[in-house]
């Protein structure tokens, strides 16, 4: 309740600042969509040379991509802490956060809220719907419910991973290249994991489970029995909860080690 009202206040303030810089807002939306569009074009180019990717058709891969964009957009809106180390640790803004009576991670997330990212989620939903029709899949009420549950699970996976890795900033003062690395790896989760070798598949499933942000949950709707991916899909919420909990633990432990900036 308290956090709900705080969320609303921060959102209002976000709107107030953002509406004064309207051009900025649209440029951000545009560049976001352009980036996603390029990825989509890349998939289409690949399929101009081959009919299937590890046994997956173009429409199926595009469908997975559409699904991937939904949790990605939600993450970008609410949980993206890009630049945390620079702003809060090096410049010491964490001091201010820690002297206020609300959970520190929550405050940081609210300050970095970025609602334009949600437009990417909407675009993902449209892409999914279009490929859904192309694939001629049946639509059931249960599918919509599952979509919500799986999206929540995938978003939690994202949240947990990025929170844990952002918290590294509390443990070392040197900037690490881990976050950009992760940023690149996340793209691998959008393609059928069957095309990778076993090590990478294992990595994407259990260690940095980006397969649970894309291909596994999406295959729930595609009914592809051969790889057992659809049954792994049901694990998404559990993996999400586990990683989110681990992320929070690492964060809370890290905050105790916060050392502040000089002065």
């Amino acid at each position: 309740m308290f956090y709900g009202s705080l969320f609303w206040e921060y959102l209002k303030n976000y709107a107030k600042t953002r509406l004064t810089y309207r051009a900025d807002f649209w440029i951000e939306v545009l560049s976001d969509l352009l980036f996603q569009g390029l990825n989509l074009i890349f998939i289409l180019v690949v399929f101009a040379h081959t009919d299937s990717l590890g046994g997956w058709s173009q429409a199926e891969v595009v469908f997975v991509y559409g699904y991937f964009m939904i949790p990605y957009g939600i993450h970008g809106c609410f949980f993206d802490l890009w630049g945390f180390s620079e702003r809060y640790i090096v410049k010491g803004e964490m001091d201010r956060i820690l002297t206020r009576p609300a959970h520190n991670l929550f405050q940081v997330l609210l300050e970095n809220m970025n609602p334009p990212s949600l437009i990417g989620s909407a675009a993902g939903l449209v892409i999914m719907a279009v490929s859904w029709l192309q694939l001629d899949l049946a639509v059931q009420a249960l599918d919509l419910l599952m979509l919500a549950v799986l999206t929540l699970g995938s978003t939690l996976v994202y949240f947990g991973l990025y929170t844990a890795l952002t918290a590294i900033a509390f443990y070392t003062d040197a900037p690490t290249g881990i976050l950009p690395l992760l940023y690149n790896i996340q793209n691998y989760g959008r393609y059928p994991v069957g095309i990778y070798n076993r090590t990478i598949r294992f990595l994407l499933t259990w260690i940095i489970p980006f397969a649970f942000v894309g291909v596994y949950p999406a295959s729930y709707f595609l009914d592809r029995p051969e790889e057992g991916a659809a049954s792994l899909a049901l694990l998404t919420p559990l993996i999400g909860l586990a990683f989110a909990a681990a992320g929070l633990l690492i964060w809370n432990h890290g905050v105790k080690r916060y050392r502040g900036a000089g002065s």
Partner: protein
Amino acid sequence: MLAIDVELLQKRFVVQKNREGLAGAFKDLFKREYREVKAVKDITFQIPQGEICGYIGENGAGKSTTIKMLTGILVPTSGRLVVNGYVPFKEREAFVKGIGVVFGQRSQLWWDIGVVESFNLLRKVYRVPPQDFKRRLDELVERLQLGELLSRPVRKLSLGQRMRCELVASLLHNPSILFLDEPTIGLDIVVKTEIREFLKQLNRDHGTTILLTTHDLQDIEALCSRVIMLDDGTIIYDGSLELLKANWSKGREIHFHFGAPTALAALEQLTSGLGVQWRLDHELSAVMWLPSEINVSGALARVVGAADIRDIKIVETNTDEIVREIYKTEKVAP
């Protein structure tokens, strides 16, 4: 009741040692060396409710580290720490509701939105009831004359205006302890005086305990009944400002202005055996330094009879000089 109770508080940091040069950087890549730095070494002090206490020391003496431990930002390495009835780092969110914090070097306010919007956001964060908030804001705004500033975005305020807004922001939830880390840094004398007056009144009217760090000893003289001086992580003085002056002030200076050119040797001749020191500014003006234990009248009598004096001025050593003296001597002592 004690507002702040600190016992054998210690904070150590592990710092990475960077070796010199490219070769050193390369070595660091494989094997890092760490060394431990004690920023605060076993300090103990108590501050009763309603006191204004100045916390001074050179840069790097450990002032900010102490303040950050007292406000719950840093977790102490060892020692006991109770502030306002809480252990700050353990019950952080409950604890910070009862304190106000102003860091002179850092803003508490949101940069892009109007000042009053920042205040409203803080009202939500601190869960202050609307009526209390309004009453308090009106009082603070009137006291600090912020009326026309409230609608402006923080980035368009001058430093003095911003600082007054920071003070309001830290007091909206009516804290019983206020921590100020260099609140007057970079401000002009008018704003400084205004802020000092405001803090004094706040302490008088609301009984707010105030702990401030500063480099401006005028702040201390104007506000503090008590001074804690820190050097290299240890407390080297804790007591009243008067006592500090009395204990450390070793003498005073007497400035002479002569009617005729006077030689240094002649002056020294006059006061030989008294243990005073002379300094000649130019041939018509000289300064005599007199240790505390010697009477002014005795020294003056010797000079007055022998020289043509136009003017005499006796100067008490000021706090700045005393503190500079203490810093210097403490540096030499192991």
